[in-house]
Structure formats: C-alpha cells, structure tokens
C-alpha cells in the first residue's frame, strides 16, 4: 500500500499542541477538545500531560497539549518532555499556538518545530489583544513566508475554531507539503552540510530523526542530541568529536559563539518576516498594562497593594466562605442522618462494628467536605489573580525576600494557598508548586508549605488560646499567624543549604504578562477543577486513613469482664426504667424488646430537634416523627398526658445514663487501644515537651486529618460533658489537677505548627515530587524539628520558671532575629558579589 493510501485509511490522528508560555495554548486546547479531555503525567516525570480528543465524522483527532516552552532545547524538564514526545510519537500535525502580540519571539519557536520536519499548522492566537494594541498581521503574507497554514484565532472567545479544525484536516490529508521556510545559517551552512552527510552514513538514523536538525543541534552542543548520535550511530563518537572541532573552528574564525550565531540567524529571519507581515499603528500612548503598573508596581506603593490583595483574599474566602458553610453544613448533617438510618440500629451500650465504622468515616469525610465552599471561593480568587497577570507581579515584588531564604518569587502562590495568615490548605498549596521553574526552591516550597496555618489547624489553636492565653488573645493569635511563616522561611533556608544543596536551581527569569480581564468561564472551570481535585484526592485518602485510625482506636477493645461490668450497669438502669413505667398504661409499649427501638427513636428525635432551626423547622420535625410513629409520638412529646410524661421522664433518664456509659466505654477503649498504648509508650520521650498520653494521641491522630486533634481531645477530656460544659472548661478543669499550664499549651502549639503535613498533604508531596523518599522525609523531618523546638521551649521555660506568654515572646524574638540575620547575611553576600563586578570606566 502506498503512503498516501495509508493516510486515507487512517481514522485516528495524533495532534500535538505546542507553543510558548502565555500564548493561550490551554484555551486553544479547550476550544478544540471541549469537555473531552483528561490529565495524566508523562511517564516517569511530574509534568502534566493533557490529552483530549474530538471527532469529525468517523475520524478521531487526539490532541496532546505539550508543556509550554520557549524553545525546544534540552535545558529544562518541560522542554525535554516536549521534544521527546515529538521525536518519539511523531504526531501527524503540530499545531503551533502563537501569540500575535509578540510574533517575533513566537516565530523563534516555530522555526525550531519546522526544523524538526513536522507538518505544522499555526494558530495565531490573541488577535483581539493585538488589534487593541494597534497591531495588524497580514495573514496571507505570513502564510506565504512560512509555507504553512496560519489561522487567526481568539482562544478565549472560541473564535477561529472551525477554521483551525479545517486547517488540521487539510494538513493531515495533504499528500505533499509546500516547502516551508528554511533558515539560512550563512557561514555555518558548510559545517551543517558536512555533518549531515556524515550522519547519513547510517541509514537507520535518518528514518528516526531529521538529519539537518541533528546536525544543527550538534553544533549547538545539545546534550541530548549528542547522546542520540553517540548511541544510535555506528560512528557516533567520531561525529560528535567532529562537530565539536568544527564548532571551535567556527568560533575561532568569527569570534562569535556558535549558539549565539545560530540564534541570531533565526532572529534575523524572524525579524524579516515580522517586518513584512506586521504593521503597527504608530501610537505614542502607553499600553494600558504599563499605566497600571506605574502605580501597582511602584517601588513605594507595591507592598500596600500586595497587602490589600492578600487581605481581600482572606476576607472573601475565609471569612465570607465560612459564612457559607452555615448553609452547607445542614446538607452534610442530613447526609449523615440518612447514612445513620440505613445502617443497622444502634445497640444499647455498644454499636455494631459496621455502624460505628461507617459513621466514623462519614464524620471524617464531612469535616473535610465542610471546607468546600471556602476552597471554591479561594480557588476562584486565585484563578482571577493568575489570569489577570497580578500573580506574576506578586512574585516580582516578593522575590527578593523569598530568595534570601532559598525560595523563589513564585513560592508566593503556594504559601497563600497554604494559608499564610489563617485558613487555607496545604494540598492545593503543594499542587500549585508545579509552576516554579527552580527545582531547589520548588522542593523547599513543597516541604515548607505544610507549616502554614491551614484551616484545620485553627480549631486547636483557638481552643488552646482560649484556655491558656485568654488574657493575651490577640497577641497569641498574632504570634501563631506570623511565627509559622518565619519558621517556614528559616527551615527553607536550612533545607536549601543542606539536603537540597545539590539540586538544580534556576534563575528568576520571568516574562511579565500583560494584564488581561479574566473570563468567567475560565475562572469557574479552574476553580471547579481544583476543588474537585481536592475532594477526590483528599476524600479517598482521608477516608482510607480514617479507617486505619478507627481500627487503631477500636482494637483490641475491652476485656470481657469490663464489658460485663458495663452491661450490668446498663441492665440496672433498664431495671429502674422498667419499674418506673410498669404501672403506666404505656408499659406494654415500652418494655422488653420494644425498649431499645424506642430509646433510639427518642435519641433520633432529640437530635433532629437540635438540628432543626426555628419554630417552623421544629414543627416540621414533630409532624414527620408523628407521621412515622403515630403510637409512640406521645411518649416523645407528652402534651398534657400525665402517664406519658412519666414514661418520657424515665426515658430521658435512661437515655442520659446510656450516653454516659457509652462515653465511659469509649474512653476506656481508647485508653487500652493500640493507639492508647502508642500514646503511653511515647510518654517517656514526649515528657520533655510536656505532652501526656492524651495529647500524644490527639497529635498522632491529627496526622490523618488535622481536625481530628480537637475531636480526639473532645473524646479524651469528657469529664463534665454531661453538665453541658464546653471542651474549654473541661480541659481547663482537668488540667488544673494534672498540672497542665500555659507552658504546656505553648509546647503543643509549637509542635502542632511545625508538625508534619496531614496525610492528604503528604500524599500530595509524593505526587508532586514523584518520590516516596521525599514523602518520608516530609514526615520525619518536621516531626524532629517540631519536637525539638517544643521540648527546648518547654524545658527551658521550666528551668527558668517562665510562663507560657513570656516564653512565647522570647521565642518569637529569637526566631525573628534569626530570620532577619539570614536575610541580612544574604543581602551582604550578594551585594559583595555584585560589587566585585562594578564597572569603572577608565
């Protein structure tokens, strides 16, 4: 069969979407594939691989969105991934998305793809922006000059979709190509030709790779190209040597770097094409972005705009988002009720394993789902910041500070998402480190984002502050919200100058994008996507882990004697109940087998009444219970019926007796559980930080999900819960007689702040670093640091007899001084380096 015949038969084409960053590749991708897409990783590396497809009749076009790169060299991971994909997969068409507003630079990329001998279709994107800047592009001329199809598109508005699809169709069905533009390398041509001839010596290589491209890459001294030639060509080593010597010859002859020369040749051609195709209205007025930046990036004003932005994000997402959870929580509570009703009914003093396990899992999932509204708002705001172009400016403003601590200007976004001041989540924070080009900073950011104050840490903070630092509340909250960022910076510095020292770094070279108005669709899509990712990743993992925690708390369970004891207590209570109601006419309805269902009904009713809001809600609960249980309702709510009142009172007594017994069982169970054993066995070590076994358990269980710390404490400190005391009062009471004071609290606070990321975040560390070892490190290292800090502060405080608040101030002062010192040392050393290069004219 001829090659043409094959083409006609084929009904599945591979299209690679390539282009520079910020050229609107993603919008073009969305425009082509619509909803039909999924994200994966390229094998072995953590670079996103977006794959989607669309159909035209019987023909299926599979679109792969390559990472955005400025060129196709082998210096960065993204570039290597893109290039490898093109070389290995050999797509049928490469759709090159170009930014019409900076055509000259975009052409630089196009040339490289053309040099690799791929059929190219150009999507000239952002035509609307170009027009608004008074730039007009002569498409016909550009098509003629490049020798490939050029389609004008406006990706954000979906314009040019059909034309682009038509061009792709034409391109894959075309039998022969018009010869695309070729770059003339003038003086280098001799060398290129010579190398190409040598490479042609091995016939198999020419099938796999375009030879002219290989020859040019050899002259550019590209590592991967050298590797290809050395391994795949019989005389590989010799050719590489030859290329090197030719390279040096050329440099000696012309006194220009070969790489520079090649770039200059491409640039000259790009310049010629731009001169011929682009006409710009000569307007002297400043572009709008520049006019905005004159204020927003003003040296003196920039920090204020930045603070205002962070404050607005905080106010809208955390404060207002929290308001929203008031509406969403009842939905989650209802869901729990539904699950509770499906499950086997509650036992008298002990529930079946299935019931308690399922409810436990629902509860853990609910606590996390409760944050969804907050995250949605947060992600939407972040998407707006990113789309508008302000995010890049934040990086610009803060780079110097972050850089002194070994981080990168682009670490700002992860820190904001992680919750700089209060509220946030490390999971999206770690997710968003993807964009940081500097690997060392990227890892340091991934490892320090979990120190931020995520939403789930707040309950424990407020709890401890309310009990132990009530008089210095505002100071304590200020301490917590700023000490974490200070510690994160110090630890980032420690990491980057020790374990991460050998990692690659990249300079801060960032294009400052123009301001764009973000689109509703884009923002909604991105925030939904990220929220869904949160629900999915966190949901599955946390549910799985909560199961482990549950088993650790549940087993080995109580001994038979203890259970017998509690059962005896319960039967006593039941006997009392029976004797009380025996005389009543309702006696037959409530004794024997009927007692337990009634008791459960009573508890359900109480809970439903508690969850209902307002008089109407209560009435609705009443009527629904009445409808379901016409005979028994009078016992739940005796109105004027004296006999029923007696039963009701006995029922209430029985219910509270049962609750207190259940609580005692639970407490004893935890104490004797595997978890309890772990907590106790850790006491000898944790005593240096002042933690007793209860705190140990709470802290360990908070690894599964931070919220559980307070929940676990609630179970552990339940003396007095029957008297309707709050957890604060209960802990306060208990701590009085076991000697816990504000110093203990400070140690717990510090440990909690520096403690390893929760499980979901640790998994995210694994996903983002692609290594289990890093994940392990992310667990072990902060534990060591946190415990070290907590014990030092506690032991020192004890030794000098200082109170919690004094130690808090002292610690803050020391940490702040260390951070300042690091920043100053960095400043002096970098100034000294710069000073050694000062230009002195004669």
């Amino acid at each position, binding site marked *: 069969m001829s090659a043409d015949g094959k083409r006609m038969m084929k009904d599945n084409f591979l299209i690679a979407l390539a282009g520079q960053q910020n050229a609107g590749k993603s919008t073009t991708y969305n425009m082509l594939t619509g909803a039909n897409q999924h994200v994966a990783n390229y094998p072995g590396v953590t670079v996103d691989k977006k794959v989607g497809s669309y159909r035209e009749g019987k023909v299926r076009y599979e679109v792969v969105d390559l990472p955005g790169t400025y060129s196709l060299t082998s210096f960065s991971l993204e570039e290597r991934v893109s290039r490898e994909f093109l070389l290995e997969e050999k797509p049928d068409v490469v759709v090159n998305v170009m930014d019409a507003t900076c055509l000259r630079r975009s052409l630089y990329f196009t040339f490289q793809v053309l040099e690799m001998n791929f059929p190219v279709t150009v999507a000239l994107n952002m035509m609307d922006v170009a027009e608004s800047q008074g730039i007009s592009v002569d498409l016909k001329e550009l098509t003629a000059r490049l020798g490939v199809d050029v389609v004008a598109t406006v990706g954000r508005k979906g314009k040019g979709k059909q034309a682009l699809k038509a061009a792709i169709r034409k391109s894959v069905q075309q039998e022969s190509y018009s010869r695309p533009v070729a770059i003339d390398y003038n003086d280098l041509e001799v060398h290129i030709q010579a190398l190409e001839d040598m490479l042609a010596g091995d016939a198999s290589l020419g099938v796999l790779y375009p030879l002219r491209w290989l020859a040019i890459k050899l002259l550019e001294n590209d590592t991967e190209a050298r590797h290809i030639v050395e391994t795949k060509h019989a005389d590989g080593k010799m050719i590489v040597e030859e290329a090197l010597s030719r390279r040096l010859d050329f440099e000696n002859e012309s006194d220009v770097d070969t790489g520079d020369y090649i770039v200059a040749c491409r640039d000259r051609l790009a310049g010629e094409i731009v001169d011929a195709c682009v006409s710009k209205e000569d307007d002297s007025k400043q572009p709008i972005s520049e006019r905005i930046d004159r204020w927003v990036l003003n040296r003196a004003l920039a920090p204020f705009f930045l603070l205002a932005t962070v404050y607005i994000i905080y106010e809208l997402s955390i404060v207002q988002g929290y308001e929203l959870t008031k509406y969403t929580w009842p939905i989650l509570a209802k869901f729990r009720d539904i699950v509770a009703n499906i499950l086997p009914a509650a036992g008298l003093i002990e529930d079946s394993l299935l019931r308690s396990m399922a409810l436990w899992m629902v509860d853990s999932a609910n606590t996390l789902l409760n944050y969804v509204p907050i995250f949605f708002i947060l992600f939407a705001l972040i998407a707006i910041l990113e789309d508008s172009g302000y995010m890049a400016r934040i990086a610009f403003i803060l780079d110097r500070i972050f850089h002194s601590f070994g981080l990168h200007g682009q670490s700002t976004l992860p820190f904001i998402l992680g919750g700089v001041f209060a509220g946030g989540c490390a999971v999206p924070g770690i997710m968003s480190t993807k964009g940081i080009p500097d690997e060392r900073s990227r890892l340091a950011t991934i490892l320090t984002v979990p120190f931020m104050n995520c939403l789930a840490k707040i309950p424990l903070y407020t709890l401890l502050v309310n009990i132990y630092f009530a008089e210095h509340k505002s100071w304590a909250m200020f301490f917590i919200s700023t000490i974490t960022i200070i510690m994160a910076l110090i630890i980032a510095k420690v990491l980057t100058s020790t374990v991460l020292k050998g990692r690659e770094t990249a300079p801060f*070279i960032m294009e400052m994008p123009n301001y764009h108005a973000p689109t509703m669709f884009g923002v909604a899509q991105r925030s939904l996507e990220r929220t869904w990712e949160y629900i999915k990743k966190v949901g599955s993992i946390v549910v799985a882990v909560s199961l482990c925690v549950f088993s650790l708390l549940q087993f080995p369970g109580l001994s038979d004697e203890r259970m017998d004891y509690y059962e005896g207590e319960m039967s006593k209570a039941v006997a009392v109940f029976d004797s009380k109601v025996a005389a009543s006419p309702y006696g037959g309805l409530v004794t024997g087998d009927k007692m337990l269902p009634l008791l459960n009904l009573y508890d359900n009713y109480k809970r439903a009444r508690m969850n209902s809001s307002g008089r109407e809600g209560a009435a609705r609960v009443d009527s629904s219970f009445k409808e379901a249980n016409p005979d028994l309702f009078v016992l739940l709510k005796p109105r004027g019926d004296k006999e029923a009142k007696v039963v009701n009172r006995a029922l209430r007594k029985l219910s509270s007796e049962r609750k207190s017994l259940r609580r005692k069982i639970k407490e004893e169970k935890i104490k004797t559980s595997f978890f309890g054993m772990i907590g106790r066995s850790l006491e000898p070590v944790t005593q240096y930080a002042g933690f007793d076994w209860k705190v140990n358990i709470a802290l360990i269980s908070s690894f599964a999900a931070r919220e559980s710390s307070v929940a676990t404490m609630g179970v552990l400190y339940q003396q007095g819960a029957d008297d309707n005391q709050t957890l604060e009062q209960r802990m306060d009471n208990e701590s009085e007689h076991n000697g816990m004071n504000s110093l203990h609290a400070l140690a717990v606070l510090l440990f909690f702040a520096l403690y390893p990321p929760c499980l979901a975040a640790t998994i995210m560390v694994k996903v983002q670093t692609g290594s289990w070892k890093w994940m392990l490190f992310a667990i072990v290292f902060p534990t060591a640091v946190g415990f070290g800090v907590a014990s030092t502060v506690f032991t020192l405080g004890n030794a000098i007899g200082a109170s919690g608040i004094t130690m808090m101030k002292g610690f803050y002062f020391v940490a702040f001084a260390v951070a300042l010192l690091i920043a100053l040392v960095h400043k002096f050393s970098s100034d000294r380096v710069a000073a050694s290069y000062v230009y002195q004219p004669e």
Partner: protein
Amino acid sequence: MFNKFDFFDREVFSGRRRKRGFGGRKQGKSCSMRGKSLLDIPVGGSAVIRRHFSGGAVRQRLLDLGFVPGRKIEVVRVATLGCPLELRVAGYCVTLRRTEAYQIEVEDER
C-alpha cells in the same frame, strides 16, 4: 526515564548536568575585561546588548526570550527591595535578578 526529584540518586542527573557548562561562553572570564553591565543602566534608561557572560540554561532562556546581541534593552523598573529588575526587550517585559543582570554586557545606544 530518570526521576527528577530523587535526591537520593543524585548522580543520575546532576553528574550529567554539571558537564553541560561549556554550552555557553567560557565562564568566569576575568572581570576587568568587562564593560558596562545591565546594572549600570539607570532605571528608565536603555542600552544595546553586546554579549552574555552567563552559560547553560540561563543563557539559553535569555536568548529564547529575545535577549539577542544587538537588541535594544530598557530598564523599566526595579522591585521594592531593589532586586528583580523589569526589562523591556522587543516589546515585552521580562524580569531578572541582579545576579543575572550583571552577566549581560551592554553598550550605549548609537
């Protein structure tokens, strides 16, 4: 494929990486031979790029972004703390740290 982040297998990458240095012009060229660097251009001023002293990825990225010898370059502004500089080259803005900026040699416009 190698794993980029596996710091325990350091030699997989960095070993190969380090050799890449001679992609650009010889590094560490004596300072006294240098002329004006970008840092010597006042904010708001402009100059023409003469050559790069950086190597490897930095040099490549700069060339990709249009920092080609012979191009006019303008210092738009510096950040609050004086470190990243915002430069305009070929009609768009790029930010650089001082450590990269002083490796770009410039000459006055003619």
